[in-house]
């Protein structure tokens, strides 16, 4: 069974939500990313979204834009991220790894070649935010054949008819975008989030995880009451950036993730 599926299954059996962490690969360097992921794994993270930086990230807010820019300046490549994936897999055999990035670098690497390499490195799935299901046929087919889960997103603006198609196409889980706009920590979550997530859950038996804007344990706790997974992104990226190169990086990441998981 795919590690993403087993992670959600395990949490569901425990009556808890799965904790998913996004981290920009290579920000500010590969060693930092690797150490931070060790911290996340030790804290009990279920899924790591390993972000592949892109020069023109249109869905991202200032934090991840900046992280992507720095990572690229410091020479991160798709190949280096695939290599990193392989190392993480060896150290953390049960941690689910979802490769997360814009379509162009994957297209340029070669869709089939990327899937082959990702699968060989031990990745469990991929999410390409600017590739809607109707344009994803080739990559989706290749992923399916390799046993990689291709995750698709549902937005607050998605019509119910589209949401049903997306839920059907998505593997692993359905990524529910909590708010309109870009990624980044927000002080408050939208008040109608719960009914909107429940509406998607009513369409499918697949897990639904909520991301965009989540930064505080209290927010994670509130979302965990009605969603199958909670996704933390920019707030973690910021923490990693602030502690890069410091000996306490791993412990700080572990404490932050632990605080989220405890909540």
């Amino acid at each position, binding site marked *: 069974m795919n590690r993403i599926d087993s992670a959600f299954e395990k949490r569901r059996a425990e009556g808890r939500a799965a904790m998913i962490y996004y981290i920009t690969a290579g920000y500010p360097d590969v060693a930092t990313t690797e150490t931070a992921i060790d911290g996340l794994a030790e804290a009990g993270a279920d899924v790591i979204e390993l972000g592949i930086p*892109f*020069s*023109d*990230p*249109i*869905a991202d*807010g*200032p934090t991840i*834009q900046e992280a992507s*820019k720095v990572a*690229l300046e410091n020479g991160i*490549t*798709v190949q280096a991220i695939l290599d990193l994936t392989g190392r993480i897999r060896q150290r953390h055999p049960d941690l689910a790894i979802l490769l997360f990035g814009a*379509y*162009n*670098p*994957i*297209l*340029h*690497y070669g869709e089939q070649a990327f899937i082959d390499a990702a699968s060989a490195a031990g990745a469990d799935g991929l999410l390409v*935010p*600017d*590739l*809607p299901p*109707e*344009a994803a046929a080739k990559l989706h087919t290749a992923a399916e054949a390799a046993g990689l889960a291709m995750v*698709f*997103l*549902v*937005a*607050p*603006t*998605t*019509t119910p008819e*589209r949401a049903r198609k*997306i839920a059907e196409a998505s593997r692993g889980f359905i990524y529910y*975008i909590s708010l*309109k*706009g*870009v990624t980044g920590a927000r002080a408050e979550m939208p008040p109608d989030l719960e009914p909107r997530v429940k509406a998607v859950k009513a369409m499918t038996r697949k897990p639904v995880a909520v991301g965009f804007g989540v930064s505080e344990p209290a927010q994670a706790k509130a979302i965990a009451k009605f969603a199958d997974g909670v996704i933390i992104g920019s707030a973690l990226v910021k923490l990693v950036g602030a502690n890069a190169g410091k000996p306490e990086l791993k412990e700080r990441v572990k404490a932050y993730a632990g605080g989220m998981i405890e909540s």
Partner: protein
Amino acid sequence: MSQTTTTLPLLADLPDPQGYYGRFGGRYVPETLMAALEELETIYASVRHDPEFHAELNELFQHYVGRPTPLWEAKRLAETLGGKARIFLKREDLCHTGAHKLNNTLGQALLTKRLGKKRVIAETGAGQHGVAAATAAALLGLECEVFMGAEDIKRQELNVFRMKLLGSKVREVRSGSMTLKDATNEALREWMARVEDTHYIIGSCIGPHPYPMIVRDFQSVIGRESRKQFNEQVGGLPDAVIACVGGGSNSMGLFAPFYEDWDVKMFGVEAEGEGFLTGRHACSIGNREVGVFHGARLFVLQTPDGQITPAHSISAGLDYPGTGPEHCFYAESGRATYLSVTDTEAIEACRLLCRTEGILPAIESAHAVAALPKMLPQLNEGAKVILGLSGRGDKDVYTLRKYFEE
């Protein structure tokens, strides 16, 4: 190319129902924007053949923009270039606000009203599209915010002031290379956040479907008028049409109405900046690398790792790392030929047109003039050519002075 031998699709089938021109185009955007693009497609389909909508737009074209713009035979220019061809300038530089951009912004501003939205946003490089968007918004009573890179704001202070004078806000973009591509990224982000009350007026034949089609259709007034004027003034059809290509809106506007005139040759001119071999250029078609950028599959400048690289051109309007999908299709299918000229050649062509015709073109448009010596040898003697003169050069006077006085 003749009609009997071609296997090209008809204009009505460009794009196909999924928004593709051959293998180019499509819709590659975050899910948050999908509903808005579908809505835009639906509303546009409903007005595309609506006589009332077009009557309103034509009224604006005639009495506000100043259309039809003249088709002027540039005899002294032709003579200077050897006298073996006749050259006709389609004078979009005489449009209100000084360039073809207003054709599209007025069309999309009217569309905004049909969408029931009251606010528009736009991206701009040099400021021409920003000014045209601000102008259309002022005229039609819409709120407007223009996204502009911090670098471009520095280089184009007067256009920034002009947009503010027109009642628009100007949002300074400090991400990435702080130029047009980053302004476009930021406009897309803003659209994601306010998609319910805001329409994004894209300024060129780029972006996700249906944008390249919408911009082409509104700009096609250039080619329709040219075709009619040429027939009235000269008779028949020209042998070739030529225009500069950045994203590709003025050229596509000129080309599309001649698309099915299979014997009319088409030449697009890309900005070669400091020279193709220096790597500092904007020749995304010349470079022939396919990628997905700003929502569509197209030719785009990129690194071996699929990261987009900034373009380089002295003309801000051509300083964009991709070319619209329909041009990519024209290039790959052979329907059009793409040439390139350097910054220096374009600047020299500005002076040439000033001195032979008394017309100061935008540096963008001067790229087409500069390419004539490369194009004419590919035509028969006595060939008749229409050149899209997309804008006037008043905005470039400082750049030109700097070049000629140094």
